[in-house]
């Protein structure tokens, strides 16, 4: 029940936010925050829940961007909302491309998977630069200018990104509560054992990857329309992947809200740093540095670490009572939705 309330409040707040008359730069910041939140949430499906860290998601971001760009080379934009309506198609194309790749890449092990995805990213970028007949190469590809009134220019993009984020979160929530999520948990915990007890290992892996890249591609499509110009080095930029990964790790892999929290901390943080430090070289150092710090200090991420501490506190409280047992009070596994998501082992066990 709490999960529904949390979700409801979130939806209401963000649906109404633009109405408060923020300045353009605030809305712009929100658009990027929501974009990264959506993408991190999507990445989480593969990297967090399935346990397969994809390092090439940016390739699909670019795929979505170029798809929208190319579509509107041949179609017109009249009301200005057509690109948004075409988004699901971009998602489907990405899923169609992603599924066979997932099938091949996820056959052996997670590190080989990482290898394929990283290579994929590079190949996609090379393709983008070299197929200039199609993509315009280094010159870039232009999108039709959105005919939205200046005063509320950002609104459609804001709502588009919000929609993608909410879709991603809904998918995450539903999968956590269903057998898909349970299968993914099994795959992540012990894939060989999962295979041995009849879990549809390959199926759920491919499914999570396909859905994940579809969402990221849609974000790319909105981005392309917003930026109006698609350059290969920005559309297929490793920094995009790094951002997704980092934000998910920071907030907590395998949780519903983790990636969102991660994005809400890091995107504004990064913008602030950019404002203060200027040069983009520091981005990389800052991102990598934060990433490494998290790995070493708080590898589970914010949410699971908090959940862990709370559980430990409950365990201490329980064991100081007269009829203490040596395990903590059993947390409710699975079906909980919302909050910490994946239950973490209590205090002393295992």
């Amino acid at each position, binding site marked *: 029940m709490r999960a529904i309330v949390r979700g409801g409040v979130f939806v209401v707040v963000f649906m109404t936010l633009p109405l408060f008359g923020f300045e353009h730069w605030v809305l712009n910041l929100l658009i990027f925050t929501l974009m990264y939140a959506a993408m991190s949430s999507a990445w989480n499906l593969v990297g967090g829940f399935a346990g397969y860290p994809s390092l090439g998601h940016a390739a699909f971001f670019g795929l979505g961007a170029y798809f929208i760009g190319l579509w509107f080379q041949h179609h017109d934009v009249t009301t200005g909302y057509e690109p948004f309506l075409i988004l699901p198609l971009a998602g489907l194309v990405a899923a169609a491309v992603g599924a066979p790749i997932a099938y091949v890449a996820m056959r052996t092990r997670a590190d080989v998977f990482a290898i*394929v995805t990283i*290579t994929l990213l590079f*190949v996609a970028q090379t393709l983008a630069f070299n197929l200039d007949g199609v993509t315009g190469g280094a010159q870039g590809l232009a999108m039709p200018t959105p005919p939205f009134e200046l005063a509320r220019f950002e609104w459609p993009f804001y709502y588009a990104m919000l929609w993608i984020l909410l879709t991603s979160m809904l998918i995450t929530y539903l999968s956590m509560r269903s057998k898909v999520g349970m299968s993914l948990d099994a795959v992540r915990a012990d894939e060989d054992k999962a295979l041995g007890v009849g879990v549809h290992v390959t199926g759920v892996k491919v499914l999570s990857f396909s859905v994940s890249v579809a969402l990221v591609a849609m974000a790319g499509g909105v981005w392309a329309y917003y930026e109006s110009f698609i350059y290969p080095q920005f559309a297929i930029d490793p920094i995009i992947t790094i951002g997704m990964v980092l934000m998910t790790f920071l907030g907590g892999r395998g949780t519903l809200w983790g990636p969102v929290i991660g994005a809400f901390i890091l995107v504004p943080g990064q913008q602030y740093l950019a404002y203060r430090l200027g040069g983009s*070289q520091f981005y990389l*150092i800052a*991102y990598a540095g934060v*990433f490494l710090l998290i790995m070493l200090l708080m590898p589970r991420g914010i949410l699971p670490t908090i959940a862990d501490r709370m559980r430990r506190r409950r365990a201490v409280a329980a064991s100081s009572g007269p009829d203490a047992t040596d395990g903590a009070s059993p947390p409710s596994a699975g079906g909980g939705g919302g909050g910490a998501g994946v239950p973490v082992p209590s205090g002393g066990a295992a």
Partner: protein
Amino acid sequence: MHALVQGVILGILTGGVYALMASGQTLIFGIMKVVNLAQGAFVILAAYLSYTLFSSFGLDPILSIPLTTVLMFGLGVVIQLVFLRPLKREDSAQLSLLVTFAVALLLEGVMSVVWQTTYRSTNTDYANSSWTLFGFQFTVVRVIAFVLSLIALGLLFLLLNRTRFGRAVRATVQNPMSAELLGVESKRVAALGFGLGAATAAAAGSVYGLLYPFNSGSHYDLISELLSIVVLGGLGSVGGAVIAALIVSTSSAVVATVFSPTWSSFTFFVILILVLLIRPQGLFGTVERGAL
């Protein structure tokens, strides 16, 4: 036909350099079961180091190799100790992967700050000369690179097969638990092994700087190529990496000379996918289905 042979020559010569880089990578995997995504960055860093030693002190990149090797070895050990050793969790394998990825990016960032993003190239006077033999072109640097790689690989071979440390490394690769029981300190081997992997990048880096223009972002292309080679050769097999490097490098060079350079970058991706479809364990790797 001429183009084909020229491509093969080019491929073999460059293959030596790739073999050297890949051998370090696969060695690290063999010891720590970690795919070192920072290997490309190590090579580029070494390239920058040799470039700086050359442009600021006039030290020939070949001659500076012993110095850079020591530096890179030290760096490798430090990185392992600071970032990889502390990871002691159930999914440390996955985390290690991401940690090396982060290290690669950190290095890229640092390099772009120190040396900016302009493309560099170590331009010694012999950098552009070439010999012609039987109508085929042999670039001087590539020949030097090839010879150097052979020497370095030979040294690596000697190290692995004739020294106590090398034995410890091989034992750890084959069976870490038994190795520990027999007195091999796996932690030390891990740190030194990682350093060794980074050290192989030193020689490769000097050569890389002579052959190609590079900047801080070049490690991406490089790591993708290296990974394909390592997968083809079989994760953990140094011999496999060498053979795979020659295969990939030659195919890529042939495609470049016969068709066009743009498509040569796809060769390794195609090879990677083919390997995964046909023989996922690579040429010399072992099939791992269950963690038994």
